[in-house]
């Protein structure tokens, strides 16, 4: 077990993947000499060379598009998108190409590209640096989406994404980059595309991922102080979603609150709510409740705390759920 931050864990995971497989390479803006604006790739260029850690020209479509071609040539490129809000120039390459090439080729071609996107808010920054666009990718078949919330997952998911023959997008919880945690570097863990019950309870379930996982845990803790037993699930994989684990929990607890930083309307919470309601209809004591951001562009930093769901909003939703 080694203690490290989430950022360091990703760095270590990438380094290990690069060591083990010479076809793994990194691409992105400022990821080389600078080590990325968050220093997640620090030291990797000097360690593995400029031919394996590419400081690319400034074009996201070019980054993802050339990564597709590199993958077709046998490489396993890991692209960094500098901030969530700058993914969109690459949207066409991700949605119409990367996601579909395996199917288009009737399974003949694989494009094992990994895309790392530091995402989410509450970092006190300017426009387009704090968004949570995961739902815009989950809807597209052909992609897989991971959202680590802690150092252990950050370390292993980076490697598992790279090893996966499908394209994988990793949404990295940027405001948790400095969160420390234990990493077991020796035992390779199980299926990354599965959810994990990280706190047991029997009166309600809270599902969260990425940066909101600590908030969900804090809410469960606070609820316990009020005498309520709340189960917490770290969803971990956003596509596919591990509905079995969530459904099993809800069958037990009868109540579900889903929290995400993205706006509620059209967010992934709707999908989870709909499917879990279908699968656990008779177990539900209350409708599935969602806690998300409002249907507004991400607001200026000074008021972002009012926009992004926090402990109080999760607790308030739990209260509403218990009130049924």
């Amino acid at each position, binding site marked *: 077990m080694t203690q490290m931050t989430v950022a360091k864990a990703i760095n270590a995971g990438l380094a290990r993947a690069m060591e083990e497989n*010479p076809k793994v*390479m990194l691409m992105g803006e400022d990821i080389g000499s600078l080590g990325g604006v968050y220093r997640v790739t620090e030291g990797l260029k000097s360690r593995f060379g400029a*031919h394996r850690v590419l400081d*690319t*020209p400034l*074009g996201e*479509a*070019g980054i*993802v*598009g*050339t*990564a*597709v*071609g*590199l*993958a*077709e*040539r*046998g*490489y396993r*490129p890991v692209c960094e998108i500098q901030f969530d809000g700058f993914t969109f*120039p690459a949207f*066409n*390459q991700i949605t*119409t*190409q990367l996601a*579909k090439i*395996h*199917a*288009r*080729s*009737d*399974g*003949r*071609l*694989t494009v*094992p590209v990994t895309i790392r996107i530091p995402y989410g808010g509450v970092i006190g920054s300017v426009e387009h640096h704090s968004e949570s666009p995961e739902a815009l990718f989950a809807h597209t*078949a*052909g992609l*897989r989406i991971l959202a680590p919330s802690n150092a252990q997952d950050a370390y292993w998911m980076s490697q598992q994404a790279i090893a*996966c*023959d*499908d394209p994988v997008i990793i949404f990295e919880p940027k405001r948790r980059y400095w969160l420390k945690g234990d990493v077991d570097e020796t035992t390779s863990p199980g299926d990354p*595309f599965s959810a994990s019950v990280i706190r047991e309870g029997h009166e309600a379930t809270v599902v969260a991922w990425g940066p909101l996982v600590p908030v969900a845990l804090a809410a469960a803790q606070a609820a316990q102080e009020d005498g309520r037993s709340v189960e917490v699930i770290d969803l971990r994989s956003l*596509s*596919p*979603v*591990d*509905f*079995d684990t969530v459904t099993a929990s809800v069958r037990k607890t009868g109540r579900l609150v889903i929290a995400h930083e993205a706006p509620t309307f059209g967010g992934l919470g709707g999908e989870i709510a709909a499917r879990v309601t279908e699968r656990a209809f008779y177990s539900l004591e209350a409708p599935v409740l969602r806690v998300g951001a409002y249907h507004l562009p991400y607001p200026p930093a000074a008021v972002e705390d009012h926009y992004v769901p926090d402990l109080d909003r999760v607790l308030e939703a739990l209260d509403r759920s218990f009130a049924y």
Partner: protein
Amino acid sequence: MTAPSHHDAAAGTLPRHQLLDERGEVREDPALSPYVEDLTLEDLQHLYRSMTAARRVDKEGTSLQRQGQLVLWVPLRGQEAAQVGSAWPTRPTDRLFPSYREHAVAFERGVRPAELMQLFRGITAGGWDPEEHQMNLYTMVLASQVPHAVGYAMGTALDRRAAESEGTPPETEPEAVVAYFGDGASTEGEIHESMVFAASYDAPVLFFIQNNQWAISVPFATQSRVPLATRAAGYGFEGLRVDGNDVLGVVAATRYALEKLRAGEGPVLIEAETYRMGAHTTADDPTKYRERDEEDEWGHLDPIERLRVHLRTHHDVDDEFFETVARENDELAHELRAEVLAMTPPAFEESFAKAYAEPHSLVEAERAEYLDYQAGFTTQDDPRDTETGGTGA
């Protein structure tokens, strides 16, 4: 007489290469002529065969579509020299990235016409094995294949570097990559990013533009005031303008470019000025937007006709050759037709196995639901109601 072109006025200093003129006469071009000096009569006959075969298959495609046997067909008539001339000089290990009209390129790479027509039969979005032919699949989203070509080219260079640093320098010459796109697609932002990346990484990629003067109904003048080959200089690499209906000129320009690429001298751009003689697709009606006169004018510049005249007048090729080729092409078309008619779609169920390379819980669950649902229909009828809109473009 020179080919009509929307931009001759603005063409400025960029010369337009031509080795075989409209009357089948050879023209000297100091830069490019050496690149076709070694061509034998057999080579010329091969080029002729490929061009006419492609045209014959193309004709069959349109007729199959008219008869409801294809969902769509994309005619290539007029572009045979540009396509055959650029594909023929490539080596089996080079990788080609087409747009969606490069049938003659595909055939030159060994893709069988029937394989290719599966896409237009509506039974696959692909059709052939890209690895087997080193020929990527068609891409419907314009320009999207071009960054892939650049990345692939970057990969070939990385491979050589890796081999060299391991002390096992490859014995073969460097591979090259060709990215095809059209005058219309040249406007897409991804083309630009592709050029920047290619220049930045000295990628061995040839950007091969077929400027067929039209993007569906939009004339080339809307996309650019100047020849597209002019753009290359803005990225710091070479751009060549060539008569795209002159198969020798295209072969020479392509060989010149491939040589440069293999020497590690970075990307090259070729703009082949040609003409889409037919409709954009079988869903299109060119009378809505262009003049018969223009079509006629370009008709005189037919790429096949000029090679035929050249073979006749300068190589004493006689009727027998031309008749044999025509007969062979008819047979090819005949067999193709039979194959197309015999094609059946894969079961929809197979789609579930193609979306992901590795197991996927949602897809598995939906596959089970689908099979269950299908099993629920006990009647002999297919459960589908088959109302279709019946349009497409």
